[in-house]
């Protein structure tokens, strides 16, 4: 038995309200401004908070096996606040000091393992990368929307992994340099082009934020398409392979489903320009078709 987290929170509405299409460039500028603003705000907050002792977090709870937790609910924890504290620190504290059954994935604490993506105050974020001081309190922490909940903040990742693997996410080329100690050459420009696409940490935030993915289980989704972009654009794989890759992402549940809502790009913790990648692949696919007409 499992449940779906309710998207009907106030925060969720706010989020969908933000999903107005604007260009990635505009987006980044807005983000930059927002983050400067946030920082100033944070410094202010820190000063006020020094006198306060605790921060209140509300955490989503659900366990199919435990009677008391079969009905999804929120638990409130009060956690001593320290400067620099992240959302992950706070839930770890709650688990270690209040309720050892509080369950969530986490590991690296440095935004690289991708395991602690949660829905924090109505937005997909990594727990470890999110400073408590930057958030409104009480901080509301839920599992990623649109994924099945296994327990508390843990969601089932299988369908995400399946989509990632559907795009053949591995290097394929027939042409390797002669000689054991010869590397393939790659221009700096080309590495630069694929760089952002190689940064994905498989956190599934983008998938969770995407309305199309929510309504279409088979949609490849932003992360998988961006992964395909990373390989399709890699000059080391050659033209034939590129065509093959374009065919993969051009299928019914591929790039054409994307409605350029930018929600994925907005939440990606690694700042990957997902929507841009998807748009560029659309253009490439059109170009390819024109060639064959």
């Amino acid at each position, binding site marked *: 038995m499992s449940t779906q987290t309710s998207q009907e929170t106030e925060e969720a509405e706010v989020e969908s309200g933000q999903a107005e299409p604007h260009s990635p460039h505009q987006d980044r500028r807005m983000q930059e401004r927002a983050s400067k603003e946030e*920082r100033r705000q*944070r410094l202010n907050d820190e000063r006020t908070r020094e006198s306060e002792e605790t921060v209140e977090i509300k955490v989503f709870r659900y*366990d*199919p*096996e*435990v009677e008391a*937790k079969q009905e999804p609910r929120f638990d409130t924890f009060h956690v001593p606040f320290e*400067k*620099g504290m*992240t959302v992950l620190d706070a839930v770890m504290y709650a*688990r*270690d*000091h209040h*309720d*050892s*059954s509080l*369950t*969530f*994935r986490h*590991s*690296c*604490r*440095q*935004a*690289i*393992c*991708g*395991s602690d993506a949660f829905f924090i105050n109505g937005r997909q974020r990594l727990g470890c990368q999110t*400073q408590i001081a930057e958030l409104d309190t009480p901080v509301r922490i839920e599992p990623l929307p649109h994924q099945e909940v*296994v*327990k*508390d903040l*843990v969601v089932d*990742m299988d369908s995400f*992994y399946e989509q990632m*693997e559907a795009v*053949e*996410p*591995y*290097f*394929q080329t027939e042409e*390797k340099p002669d000689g*054991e*100690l*010869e*590397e*393939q*050459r*790659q*221009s*700096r420009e080309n*590495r630069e082009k*694929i*760089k952002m696409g*190689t*940064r994905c*940490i*498989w956190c599934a935030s983008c998938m969770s934020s995407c309305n199309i993915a929510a309504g279409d289980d088979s949609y490849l989704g932003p992360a998988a398409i961006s992964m395909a972009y990373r390989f399709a654009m*890699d000059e080391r*794989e050659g033209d034939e392979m590129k065509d093959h890759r374009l065919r993969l992402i051009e299928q019914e549940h591929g790039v054409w489903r994307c409605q350029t809502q930018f929600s994925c790009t907005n939440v990606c913790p690694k700042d990957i320009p997902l929507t841009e990648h998807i748009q560029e692949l659309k253009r490439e696919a059109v170009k390819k078709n024109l060639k064959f007409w």
Partner: protein
Amino acid sequence: MYEHDVLVVGAGGAGLRAAIAAHEEGADVALVTKLHPVRSHTGAAEGGINAALREGDSWQDHAYDTMKGSDYLGDAPAIETLCQDSPQETIQLENWGMPFSREEDGRMSQRPFGGLSFPRTTYAGAETGHHLLHTLYQQVVKRGIEVYDEWYVSRLAVTEDPDPEKRQCHGVVGYDVQTGEVAGFRARDGVILATGGPGQVYDHTTNAVSNTGDGPAMAYRAGVPMEDMEFIQFHPTTLPSTGVLISEGVRGEGGILYNEKGERFMFEHGYASNSGELASRDVVARAELTEVNEGRGINDEYVHLDMRHLGEERIIDRLENILHLAGDFEGVDGLVEPMPVKPGQHYAMGGIETDENGETLVSGLYAVGECACASVHGANRLGGNALPELIVFGARAGRHAAGTDLGEAIIETGRTEDTEIGEVDTPVAPGAIHADDEAVADGGSDVDDSESRRDATRSDGGDPRSEGASVIPEPDEVVDRAVQAENRRVDHLMEKEDGVQQAELREKLQKTMTQNVNVFRTEEGLKQALRDIREVREQYQDVYVDDPSRTFNTDLQQTIEMRNLIDTAEAITLGALARDEFRGAHWRQEYQERRDEKWLKHTLLSWNDGTPELWFKPVILEGEDKTYEPKIRSY
């Protein structure tokens, strides 16, 4: 029961490389890992991979630097293997599509790193580990290698024999984190442990929360020695509030360390008059702490690492990730302010004793990566030498386990003629481990279960000398019995209603380790740590799991991990107490010099019936065609 030819436990860089190699040799191989592969801590590695690739460099120079860096505690056959195989393995990664940083001519970039005589650290931005991990996982997907992810391996299935060298490993016991099911995994040809570092023994560490020393502790209890555990590397540049690492790449690119007075202390206070910030890690870590201890630290806690002068373009090109880390985790903008840094636990040079093929003394059991000690790092690891270790020894162990003949190993495992038995002057007798310990921690309620007394299985930690040891059991039976023992342990932990929780014990253990077994070590501090660890061990008898659910029970998992942390912490501390000298990362207040006449040898710790036994074996300084003569390490 699941069955494969080769089982690889752990899917970080070492485990993935091992699985690919075994698969290429035709073996049916599976990865069993407590995290999904891309969540492994290899992803956090930043700086790069050392490989002698270019004109003007050679594997011999790489080997020489590594031997010197190790403070002459590395074994030459292992080091030479590392340096000989690294170029080809690194190129292999590139051929598999890894996005390395590039030079104008399209070749892979290399940069200088601490302790290296040539800029041979090959890198992909400041996120080399992420790309290495993902590239290897992609190859695993491509080959269709089976992955059991979110399966926690908690016990090895090893035959029972009084002599550990006659034991054989037939598989492992895993438990499915998602469902709580305990199941046996039979390995027809071999089990390869690749479980990573034990950083969670400390509270200020660059390591992930999942790095709990599971591999070494399980192997230890199955009779394999832990080697050189006292050598813990403290990285000089970690962020003070979290332990997040600021790569050595920053100093490699020209980053400068300042104290509170704005002095470039590495030079001005004579810690490393030639290499300055690029001296090896142990040297820089001690220098920083000395500055702090002598009142020249900032906020009495840290020093500054400045990279502003490198310019925005170069920083973005080569160290962009560092800007994110400093910003997200310390609130500092590295382009406009210096970054606060202090030493933090980073790497375990010691681990499961292996030879240069990754084999341990128990047949069918291998270990690679940070959980292993083939002795390539000795007393101090050079930055950029761990990633090549993963791919070089991962590949070798995978091939060997799949039946390829790699030739006789030069390094001998286990006790030899040269073995010397040691003694530790400890505040409590080494054997003073509560009698119920096994029943609780290892689930082997063998004590009150007469059936399993005749058990021919040696579940790690069980009594190797019980009756029936002469019966050679079927491999399946060995695995089945290990599963039974594990079920008993889990049931015990789950059924107990009250007691102490692991989180409390973990905190206590981490605190004493950080306080007493850190960069600077004193005899009194080490003894205090040992007393604390043993207190925690006593309390662990009373541990219980509060979460009643079998679904994704991280409470249960952490409780099992806790036992491994205790064994690992004790081994580190016992080794540190035994080694009365100063070598590499191991500094002792009472003995401030290297004592080659006494200590050109490895410390080994064996689990004998619940009692840690200490012994030593000589370092091998003879290489392929030269002998490395110990010299003073100056930088």
